């Protein structure tokens, strides 16, 4: 078991090193922060001086060395734009993104599982066909279209829900939460529905496929033959087994939601990490962009490792093979 853990950790470090290199290299090519930061009529001398202050005049190798050195000590640098430490900026935005992702995931599970089960149990019902068709729309509509349409209906026409922002938040230590105020909860509705829509469809289709698979297996047939009540069979015997892959996928999807909430956050001006990143891009704020990529890489690597380790715990065969 220890060997698995050590080898996974080594792999994780290698991946993170690669992400660091990519984060650095990519951002050499997204633009020149000096031009964005200078006044329109800045003199060449002023620009050269700013370039020097930012350390952008040094050879790329030296810049990369310094970057790695800083990252290794946990220092993500300072934002070019507002000169604050990047780690602080991320910590400030993390609660907003995490709360949004949490609500979206709960929404996706609580809708996706029952719908999937229903579709599996009544494969030919008209309601099933309707759900299946609707789910195609859910999968194929881009997030920004969904978001704008929801805003149009619920904010502009009906005026029921706010179209942007996070409402009032309550501070609990360094964490800011929107769960404790009415305006905070109301603000959560549209963005979390937008973000959850794709997930609902995904989970629903997954549950349906798994359920159909399980329902046609031998032990379900035996259970039916024994005359067990169908509710018991569906809930206790079929669904439980069908949910195993759903849990794995949901876990991985949480990582994806954190990373790709960018569009939803932009549409709803949700003050999370995605918005931070988008603003950094338009300002060529290299430290923030690099830190964001590193952070997202870290989330994915960690979740993957956790999944691997859990598998190894569950399935003894993997322990030897993985090592």
């Amino acid at each position, binding site marked *: 078991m220890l060997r698995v853990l050590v080898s996974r950790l080594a792999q994780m470090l290698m991946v993170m090193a690669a992400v660091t290199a990519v984060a650095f290299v990519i951002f050499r*090519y*997204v*633009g*020149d922060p000096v*031009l*964005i*930061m*200078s*006044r*329109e*009529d*800045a*003199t*060449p*001398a*002023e*620009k050269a001086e*700013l370039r020097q*202050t*930012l*350390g952008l005049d040094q050879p790329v190798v030296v810049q990369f060395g310094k970057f790695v050195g800083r990252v290794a000590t946990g220092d993500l*640098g*300072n934002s*070019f*734009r*507002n*000169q*604050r*430490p990047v780690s602080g900026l991320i910590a400030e935005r993390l609660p907003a993104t995490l709360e949004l992702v949490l609500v979206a995931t709960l929404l996706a599970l609580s809708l996706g599982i029952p719908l999937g089960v229903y579709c599996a149990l009544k494969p030919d019902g008209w309601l099933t066909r309707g759900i299946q068709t609707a789910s195609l729309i859910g999968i194929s509509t881009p997030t920004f279209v969904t978001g*704008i349409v929801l*805003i*149009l209906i619920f*904010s*502009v026409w009906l*005026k029921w829900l*706010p*179209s*942007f*922002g*996070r409402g009032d938040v309550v501070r609990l230590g360094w964490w800011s939460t929107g769960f404790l105020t009415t305006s905070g909860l109301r603000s959560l509705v549209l963005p979390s529905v937008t973000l959850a829509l794709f997930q609902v469809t995904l989970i629903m289709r997954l549950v349906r496929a798994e359920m159909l698979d399980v329902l046609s297996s031998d032990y379900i047939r035996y259970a039916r033959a024994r005359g067990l009540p169908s509710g018991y069979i569906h809930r206790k015997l079929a669904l439980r087994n069908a949910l195993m892959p759903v849990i794995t996928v949901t876990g991985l999807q949480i990582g994806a939601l954190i990373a790709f909430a960018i569009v939803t956050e*932009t*549409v*709803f*001006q949700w*003050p999370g990490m995605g*918005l*931070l990143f*988008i*603003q950094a*891009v*338009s300002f*060529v704020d290299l430290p923030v962009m690099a830190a964001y990529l590193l952070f997202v890489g870290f989330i994915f690597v960690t979740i993957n490792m956790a999944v691997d380790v859990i598998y190894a715990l569950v399935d003894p065969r993997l322990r030897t093979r993985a090592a």
Partner: protein
Amino acid sequence: MTILRTTVLAGLAASATLAMTLTGAEAKTLRWSSQGDIATMDPYAHTESFTSNMHHHIYDSLVRRNKDLQIEPALALSWTVEAPDRWRFKLRQGVKFHNGNAFTADDVVASVTRLLDPAARARGNLSNVVKAEKIDDFTVDFFLRGPYPLLLNDLSGIFIMDKEWLEANNATKPGNTTTGVTTFASTNANGTGPFVLESYQPDNRTIMTANPNWWDKPAHNLTRIEFRPIKSDATRVAALLSGEIDMMAPAPLQDLARIGGADGFKVVEEPSLRLIFLGLNHRAELQADPGKPNPMRDKRVRQALWHAIDLDTIHRRVMRAKSRTVGTMVAPPIPGYSAALDAPLPFNVDTAKKLLAEAGYPNGFKTKLNCSNDRYIADEQTCVAIAAMWTRAGVTVDLKTESRATYFPLVDKGESDAYILGWATLPPMDGYSVASALLHSKGGAFGGNNPNGLADPRLDDLTKKAAVELDEPKRLAFLTEALKITRDEAYFIPLHQQPVAWAMKKAIDVPVFADEYVRLWFAKVN
């Protein structure tokens, strides 16, 4: 030499007691949105125009722009030029900072010293000043590097901070990127301005309340300002239409008709100071066709390219008739502007072809055309149209459009033959900005935005003369002459003046300014 430039406006010295009569009325809150946010509260730690704009509500400068964008006294009451390199300012008495501290000459000296600190990002905004010296409590001398006619223009953007407050909060040094210094002043503010900062949450909201002790008589009737940045155009429009905000600045051009048609909303438009033009390659070879002499060095070719552009069609189709077609490099309100120069070369494909043939290119030539797609209004569409028009005149165009993040570095390195550029002469609002940054050949303090080898000794000479000429009519004549040469030689191809459009509820009255600054001390909520 002593030139008296005192222009005290009578009404401005109004007493603070008049201001008090307005308070006590019902609360008037203005909630508004823009796409960007305030980068920092420290006025000397950035050079971003939107951030300066927001600071102007909290901080005052020695002189400021009035409703007609003319410079008028603010914290300074009057000024005299004691010597070409020494200006004396008499300060307004009885002014209080938001924390109650009195405003004196010490605050001006401390502010200038803090701004000129090598670590201050905004140091370039006052690059011609060496230091400020206190003469008495309400008199300050500014020492300059030499004769400099635009000191007041520069000072209109320099906000005065409170010396005691800076010292008490350990913020006498400005913020600095490399060392990661952020001071108390990065997130807090204490000015003398019309509004007091109540809270500042980046990317979320900034709240200001009216300053009951402002030295000036408020022309606004607001009690509170709530600013909420919204990056997405569609969401910002939705927030306005759903009543969550009262005003947006700017409003996206494609939504103006919809907002104007909605019940209870209005769109206010004004020509902006920003002019859009094409820059050209003046070096030995074209990027598109290396190894051969550059056709664009021939005046006839440059004029042909100008004649080939159907500006009227761009105005009607691309800019939806919201722009103003121009023939010169600065907008009418800018010193140095001349109406006589403001006519484009007429659109005529035959003339263009004839000029090309005369210059020795009867079959045209090959050129690059580079454009941003997210910097100016409809910049990409404008360039697509121009590429098609040039093709009709026989020129082979290699068009490339990209995001401003990569576009401007490309232009700055001189890697284009023809490129779109907008210029608003901000912050000084003076024709000298065009002359020094665009027309003068590159080198030293000049030609910061002249990457493509434009070098005309006449333009260099006129720019250098205008830089030190304190006699205003003479200075303007130099600038106009430089703009005339530029037009006669077709060094640039001016296209149009951008519109600035804001949208708001009908009950709100906010004047729109050509420099795109939001000045809510002129705002009224009815």
